[in-house]
Each structure stands twice: as structure tokens, then as C-alpha cells.
């Protein structure tokens, strides 16, 4: 399960560059990343480890859950 702090994201795209499953994509207009394919996530935690502002957290859950995005304007 991905927990993503949208407000903290600085759009550096480090997560996009290290994700081997294409979960993240850059929103060129807002200059922040978006979760494009959350179902592809395999909990490798590369994005969590590389994020310079700690905006991403990967939690282990036995029951599959939708990603939680914090602070994203509608």
C-alpha cells in the first residue's frame, strides 16, 4: 500500500527513475509526481528509500488497499 504526501513532493522524479514497474508518472503542469499504476507496485520500496523529502511510504498490508494520497487538490 502506497502512502503519498502530495504536498511534500518536490517533483524531482527520483521515484520515477528507480521504479522498475512504472508506478509513478510526472505531472508536467503541476510539477509533481502522480501514482499512475498502483496495482503494478511490488513493494520493492525503492521510491520510498530514494525520495529526498520522504513523501512516500510503503506499508505492508495483508488485505490489499487503495493508495492513500495526502493533500492532493481535486
Amino acid at each position, binding site marked *: 500500500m502506497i502512502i503519498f504526501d502530495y504536498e511534500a513532493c518536490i517533483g524531482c522524479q527520483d521515484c520515477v*527513475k528507480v521504479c*522498475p514497474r*512504472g508506478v509513478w508518472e510526472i505531472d508536467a503542469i503541476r510539477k509533481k509526481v502522480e501514482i499512475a499504476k498502483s496495482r503494478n507496485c*511490488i*513493494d*520493492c520500496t525503492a521510491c520510498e528509500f530514494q525520495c529526498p523529502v520522504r513523501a512516500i511510504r510503503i506499508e505492508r498490508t495483508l488485505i490489499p488497499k487503495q493508495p492513500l494520497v495526502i493533500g492532493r487538490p481535486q
Partner: protein
Amino acid sequence: MNKGWKYYTCILGAQLMWPRLAVRTKMGLFSFNGADSESPVLVTTDFYLTVHRVREAIQEENLKCHLLVVDGRGINVWCGSRGGNVDTDSVLDAIDQTSLANQVSHRNLILPQLIASSVSKAVLADNGWNAMFGPVEIGDVGSFIENEYEKTREQGMVSFNLQARLENNMAHMVFEMFMFLLMTPIFWLLANLGGPFVAWFGYWWSSLAYIVLLAWMFGTFMAIANPIMPTTSGYVRGLVTGLFALLVLKIIPVMFLLWQSTIDPSMIVLDWALLDTTGLTVLGLSLFVGFNWGGSTPYLGEDQMTRDIIAGLGTLVLLFALGFYFPAGIF
């Protein structure tokens, strides 16, 4: 490059049984094709097969570069990274021990992308090294360097082509064969508990040969049919394969006999009702191969793997119980 016993030991999946059986190589700095102080530095871990493939790719593409082999306890890059066998300290240790700073004039490191779960770019930057995450496959590293350290989106994604799947399957088959070798004496003892004495040699030979052959068939089927499987879950894959095998084992012979007009159509119903020990073994074995095999594909998350193991073991226990209490069939 010549392929010695170490190569084949790795291919046959020795490390699957016990990580200590993984063949390691020496850590250190290796230079290729007359690399000088300006040449780029690639980083990898010390699993023999990993280093072998990296060297092979470097020689194939005739790359002028250095290769820094980091102590990763003999585990491949991705597993080692997620499993905590390699981290930023291992990379910094390797840099110190090889005095890399004196060997090259620049401060760029090309890390494998899949090491990103445990090697921090920021900490390396604090120590004066500008680390970049290269492509997933070593074969793409030439174009990554030519492209001024930029990779395409495809080069950053894991793929799992047929060759890799069949190779993976072979390693798993060797592993499972050893598992079955250990398990058959236990099954033999259990078989003797409830019925007449079964000769050890006959039991061992017939059940082991049968189980190994079936497991090999299931594994190969899953490797080939991978793109058309409905989910990434190894459990579901095992179930699909098992049901398909039951169909082939049960329906086709009956249809053949029906076509030859040697049996009554009601026999089909009877045959399916007798989901006997053979059927249970086929289903159980397929589930075992499924969730075992599924765990080593790059599509399955850790959470999904945990769910698969719980569901798989639960079903296996149920199947064993059914087989134990209803040895002649369910109905």
C-alpha cells in the same frame, strides 16, 4: 567467455536452497578494454552469475569502463538490495578498499537501478560521489552512457522474457527435486500408517519420478503461458494450471473412450466424482509449484506473496486432509 562449473551451479539455482551456496566472486575494481581515469565506473554485487553477465555484456559492447564489485554476500543485485545484503556502506567500503578516488579523475558512479531499495544517492553525495541509477538490464548500459546518462522509460522497467522464465524454471525444478527427495521418506512413513505395508523402493521410485515429472511439466507450462495468465498471483496461477492439468488428465481419456464407444456416458460423472488421490496430488502439486515459482517473478509484491503462501498452505492442508480421510474418493 567460457562457462565453468560455477556458471552452471548458479544456473541450477544452488542459492535457492541456501544463500550460502551461492558462488561468490572477489570484490574489487576491474578495468575493461583499456579503461583510463576518465572512463565511467559501473557498480554491481558479487554474485558469480551477476558479475559473469556484466562482464559478458561489457565485452560484447566493447565498453571502455571500470567495474566495481561490491560485497553483497553473494546475492544478486535486486534480492540483495531488498533483502539487506548490500547497502550504502558496502558501496563506500568497496570505494575505500579499492581506493577508487585515486584511480579515476571524475566522481560519477553508475549504480544498477535495482539496487535503489538500499543504496542511498544522498549519502553517496555526502561522501563526494555523484551516483546515478542506470538501466535495469546491463545490456542497455552502453546506450545509457552514450545518451549522456539518460535512460528511456522502457530501460527502467523489469522485463521477464521467455528465456529468463525458462531459466528460472530450471533452477526451481532442481530446488524442488531436492525438496521432494527430503519429503518422500515422510510421505512413505505416513502412507504406512493407515494401510498395508508399502515397499520403500517402489514407493520412493514411483512417487518421486511422478512428482518430479509433474512439477517439471507444471513449471514449464507456467513459464510458457505466463503472458496469458489472468493475475500475477502465484496461487491463482497454480490453481489455473492444476485445473487445466485435471482437465487433460481426466476429460481427454474419458472423451477418447466415449468416442471409441467403449464406456457409458454416465462414467464421465463417476470419473469426476472420484476426485481421487491422483487428482488431489495434481492440484496440490500445481499449487505448490505455482506459489513457489510465482515468488521469483518480478510481478509479485511481498504482500501478495504473503497472501499466496497463506492461501496455498491452507489449501494444501485441506487437500491432504481430504486425501487422508477419503483415500478412495470424495463421494
